[in-house]
Structures are given as C-alpha cells and as structure tokens.
C-alpha cells in the first residue's frame, strides 16, 4: 500500500490531500476565469468581458 497504516500515514495523507485539493480546485478556478471569453466568442461584437 502507498500509505502506511499508521498515524504518520494518516497525517501525511491528510496534508497531501488537503494541499492538492487547493491546487486542483485552484486550477478549475483558473479555467473558469477564462470562461467569459467563450461568451465573447458566442457574440463577436460584444465588449471585452474582463474589462466589463
């Protein structure tokens, strides 16, 4: 098993999991931040969504 069945294993798993949760969800946030550009693609004449 990758994670030892000990208290240290539980602590290490918790730290890694909590940290990676922020990384992955932060990455999702970055992807979502680019979504307004899709709206702009749908309406070519629309104003820059970031400046709006």
């Amino acid at each position, binding site marked *: *098993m*990758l*994670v*030892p*069945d*000990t*208290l240290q*294993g*539980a*602590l290490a*798993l*918790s*730290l*890694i*999991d*909590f940290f*990676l*949760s*922020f990384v*992955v*969800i*932060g*990455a*999702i*946030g*970055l*992807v*979502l*931040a680019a*979504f*307004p550009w*899709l*709206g702009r*693609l*749908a*309406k070519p004449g629309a104003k820059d*969504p970031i400046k*709006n």
Partner: protein
Amino acid sequence: MHDQFILFLGALLKQTGLQELWWGNLVMIAVGCAMIYLAIAKHFEPYLLIGIGFACIVANVPGSDLIRQGGLFHYAYQGVNLLILPPLIFLGVGAMTDFGPMIANPRLVILGAGAHLGIFVALVGAKLWGFSIQESGAIGIIGGADGPMAIFVTVTLAPHLLPQISVAAYSYMALMPLIQPPVMRLLTTKQERLIRMEQPRQVGKLEKVAFPIVMAVIVNLFLPPVAPLITMLALGNLLKEVGVVERLSKTAANGVMNVVTIVLTVAIGSTMSADTFLTVSTLQIVFLGLVAFVVGTASGVLTAKIMNIFLTKKINPLIGSAGIASVPIAARVSAVVAQQEDKRNYLIYQAMGPNLAGVFGTAISGGIMLALLRAG
C-alpha cells in the same frame, strides 16, 4: 393429537423470526420509527429518511426474506455495492443544478477546498481511535457533506462501515441548519456578517454548455477514481443546459432521480441491522462525523477571512461555510445567517458558488484518497 398440535406449532414458530429477535432489533426498529417521525413531523430530509427508516425497521425483523440473498432489498444493495446508484444520483443532481453561480465567480471556488479541513481532522481522529487507514479515509469523507460521494468512497475503502457512514453523512446534512450557524457566528464579527456582495455577472449559454464538458475532461484526466460520479453529474448538467433534450433532462431530474432515491434509501436502510449497527464504532463514527462538519464549517469561514486580507472587494465570510458542499442546504444556511443580521442582504446566489465548488472539492479529496488507499 395434542402432541402433534404442539409439534406443528413448534415447527411453525421455527419458521418465524421470533426466536432470533433480541433487544437490539427493538432498538433499531425504534431508530427506524424515529427517522420516519423526523421526516414527517420535522421535515428533516423526508425523501431520504422515509426509505431509510422503513428499510431499517424491516431489516430488524429477523424473519424478513427481503434482506437475505435473493431478496429485493438485497438486490437494491447490489446497486450500491456495484457503485451503480451513486453515479445515477449524480446524473439527476446534474440535471437539476444551475452551475451559473460557480462559473460567474471563479475566485470563490477556492472555498470549495477550504471548507474541507474537517475531512482530514476526522481522518486523523479515526486513526487515533484505532480504525485502519482505509476505514479512517471513509469516515473522513463524511466531512465532505456529500451523500453519494460518501457512499462511493466507503463502498470502495470500507464497505462494512457503509450503514454507519451513510446514516451519519445524511443525518448531519439534514442537521446543518442547526450545526453551522453557531460556528459561523463564533468566527465572524457583526461587521463581517453585514458585508454586502455585488451581484455576479450573467453567465451565457455557451459557457453553461461548455462547463460540464470541460469538467468531465478535467476529472477523467486528473481524478479517474471519482470520474464515474462527476462524469454523470456533467452529463446530467449537459442534458439540462443544451436545451434541445428537455424530455431527457426532465427524466433525469425527476423519474430517474426518484427511482434511484427509493432504491438507494432502501439499500442503505437494509444494512442497518442491529448486529452490525449497535457497536461502539458506530458511536465513534457519529462523533467523528460531527467533528468533521464543525471543523469544515469553521475552516470554510476562516478561508474566506484569509481571502479578505488579499481582496479589495471584501467577501462576506459567511459564504465560506457553504464550501462544505451539501447543495443547496449549506448555501441556504449562509443566506439565512446573513439575513438575520441584515434583512436586505441577499447572499444566496453568491453562496451557491462555493457551495457548488464544494461538490468538486469533495470529489477531489475523495479521488486523491481513493487513488492512494485503494491500491492496498
């Protein structure tokens, strides 16, 4: 003649469950009745508690064939055991959910990770209490406040704990309006609770259609262990947002969801037999679940407060607790607590952003846990 009568009566008595009935069964029948009472009288998650409570009563009547191999409840449980029902629940949830608030305010998605510290506190607590690392992971996921995800992770890591964990997860989700507000008030000042937030931008149709496709790709690529759940959530949401398959979308949100809810609740309730449920570990799991919810609520609020240090336009920290998931209960709690301070402060739309992100936060935590623990 008399002897034969006694013999027949004895034979008939052996066919009944009376001889196997013990006080534990009576306690669990009372628990099942209490669940049904709470559902009817207090409206605590009636769609879940009626089925769970009823199946719990039946499972504790020893003569019942329903829960034995070949019985209907046994087959209902196979839907859980084979991980078929939780993804189907997510299909329905996706078809009912508008992800607009999450797409509109991407900064707030970080709260979907911040509010999950409770998972890890419960995990370490469970390990300290002598549970195995797989059992601890399954207990920790109660703090994700996401029933299908808790079932999914538990069936994979510690299937013998499914009744305790699913009951704890759904019970605390129903009790969130009681658990969260004191923690939220304790960690915020009146001034912070009065913060009003701007209305987020309108989200276009193309964005809403792209969202489930992008999420399905990301989750299948980076989090394959929980991909079945999020993929079905994405499919349900795509059916809703495309606007050209209304029949399918409505079926997923209503017909499929209702049928699966009946089967799922019956399956969970049928595992609550006294022999497996009335143990010390049940009490430990129930306690750790409460700790997970309280710590998760606190960490969400604190994450929002930390974000405010760096933000020029402050966010109301009350929306931080919504990151725990449990859509839309936690978002509603944030909005209610804010309105208790200022009746004109409408936070529900802003709280829905972190609330929906919390679903992905739980999936990420569960996915990483499964990836690291399942190998054993």
